[in-house]
């Protein structure tokens, strides 16, 4: 008996989004990072084009974090006080690009000003020549001041800026249009709202092809399976022709994994769980590897060992199922 061909055929591809601009393109980056482009579900390259290789963005803050566990800080040392040096360290660890989180602009944190944030953006752009992601503190009023200043400071560099939400999108859309950046659209683990945010951006004149979706991330043991199913459902809808879900996906893995007590706790606190130097990076690496299979395209990460583990998984994964 003939074995039936059960492979699926997909109508459309996930959009390819380029981040960064070289000198020829009006920026100062050494290269451009391309994400997305998949024409099949992850790990099923026999059904279509596997698309661009998923990438790692090292998480960098504009202020030194005061609550990172020692297992993380020991790899960065003094660089945590200098976003440029921090970004350089991350690239040395193997990251493909930098994600600068403007945590220090939060009114409850250092409440740094828009001008200070813009200066930090320029410093990081100067320190490294990879493309840049710039992420606000998540307080709408503050982001609406800070992010346009950062967009303007990085004009021409084709950064990825975020994030817009259902409630707050107009200002950032306008800033990205004006200064030529890509946009992160954020939704709270809700596929309907993910679509809605994209349609709001589109209605404001933004091209759906310049958007990356942030569907919210959850770590292993803390909602990972829920995130997985949301990402999977979105990807299947995107491949089936839904233009509002045809965007590449960004996952904020490092921040979520290192919130888990299993990753953070010192050896003295949880003697039964194995050494922190192994436990922490494993928690982050496994979270990332899982979301790779759900269709993640950009992974924001923290620990060098987790990045290494993840990149090895990507090597293997990109080969799976190709013919």
């Amino acid at each position, binding site marked *: 008996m003939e074995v039936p061909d059960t492979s699926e055929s997909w109508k459309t591809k996930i959009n390819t989004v380029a981040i960064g601009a070289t000198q020829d393109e009006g920026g100062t980056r050494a290269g451009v990072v391309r994400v997305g482009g998949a024409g099949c579900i992850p790990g099923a390259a026999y059904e279509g084009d596997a698309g661009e290789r998923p990438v790692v963005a090292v998480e960098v803050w504009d202020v030194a974090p005061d609550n990172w566990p020692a297992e993380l800080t020991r790899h960065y040392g003094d660089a945590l006080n200098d976003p440029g040096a921090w970004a350089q360290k991350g690239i040395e660890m193997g990251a493909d690009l930098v994600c600068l989180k403007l945590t220090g602009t939060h009114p409850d944190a250092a409440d740094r000003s828009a001008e200070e944030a813009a200066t930090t953006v320029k410093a990081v752009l100067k320190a490294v020549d990879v493309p840049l992601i710039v992420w606000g503190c998540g307080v709408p009023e503050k982001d609406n001041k800070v992010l346009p200043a950062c967009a303007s400071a990085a004009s021409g560099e084709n950064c990825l800026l975020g994030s817009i939400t259902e409630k707050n999108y107009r200002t950032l859309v306008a800033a990205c249009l004006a200064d030529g950046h890509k946009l992160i659209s954020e939704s709270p683990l809700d596929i*309907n*709202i*993910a679509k*809605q945010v994209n*349609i709001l951006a589109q209605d404001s004149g933004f091209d759906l092809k310049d958007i990356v979706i942030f569907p919210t991330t959850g770590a292993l043991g803390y909602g990972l399976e829920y995130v997985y199913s949301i990402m999977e*459902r979105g990807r299947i809808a995107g491949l089936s022709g*839904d*233009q*509002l879900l045809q965007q590449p996906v960004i996952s904020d893995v490092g921040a979520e994994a290192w919130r888990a007590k299993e990753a953070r706790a010192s050896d003295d606190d949880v003697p039964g769980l194995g050494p922190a130097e192994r436990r922490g990076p494993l928690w982050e690496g496994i979270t990332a590897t899982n979301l790779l299979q759900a269709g993640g395209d950009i992974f924001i990460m923290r620990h060098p060992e987790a990045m290494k583990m993840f990149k090895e998984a990507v090597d293997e994964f990109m080969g799976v199922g190709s013919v």
Partner: protein
Amino acid sequence: MYIIGERINGMFNDVKGAILNKDGSVVHDLAKRQVAAGADALDVNVGPASSDAEGALMWLVEEIRKVSDAPLCIDTAKWSVMSSVIPKVPGARIINSSKADPEELEQYMGLAVENDAALVTLTIDKQGVPSDVDRRVEMGALILTTAEAAGLPADRLFIDTIILPVNVAPQQPLSVLSAMQQIQMLADPMPHLLLGLSNVSQNCNERSLLNRTYLAMAIACGLDSAIMDPLDTELVDAAITAEMMMGKSIYCDSFLTAERKRKQLSS
């Protein structure tokens, strides 16, 4: 939902007048408005408007092509007109239609295959519209096997299970739904299931309500295409909503706008 706009039909007085006076602007306007409202294809039917069916049909086609590249659903019951017109129509074509009679099916499927066209087939034979479910399903099976033998792929085959006005044949709406469900069991991959929707409400009151209610019911039973009036906004809204409820798209607050934009972008 694959929507075939029904408005370019000589049965309507504006189109009849346009054909008689060779007034292209009426046709341009109807073609553009139907496509803008969500029509994927346009039905072209001279109806009783002209004694020169072929000439009038080609005139309509040429006028539409001045403003739209949408697939044209060439609607005539005369084989002589159909076989002569189809090779001359530029762009994508749908042949509308063939009855489920073995010889006629072979003839029409040959025309469709030769010209890379799609074909609408009706579950009607020489005895007319069947009154029961089984006879419709039987004809559906005949259509499917003939298409396979002729090499007409499923995505270019439409099966129209024929709906009669609800005031004339009150049992028919339910029979048609049942027939659609059973025909789906027979084929993989599925051809398109089609209805000439407006017929369900011919000479009835509350036509728009009847049309959109039946459309939603039929979509739940597998209907994926209809010859209908895309200018009836509530009808198109009902189609979008029913398809979303069937899980063919994912809800978002702007789901009506989103689906209309999707159509515009992919056309």
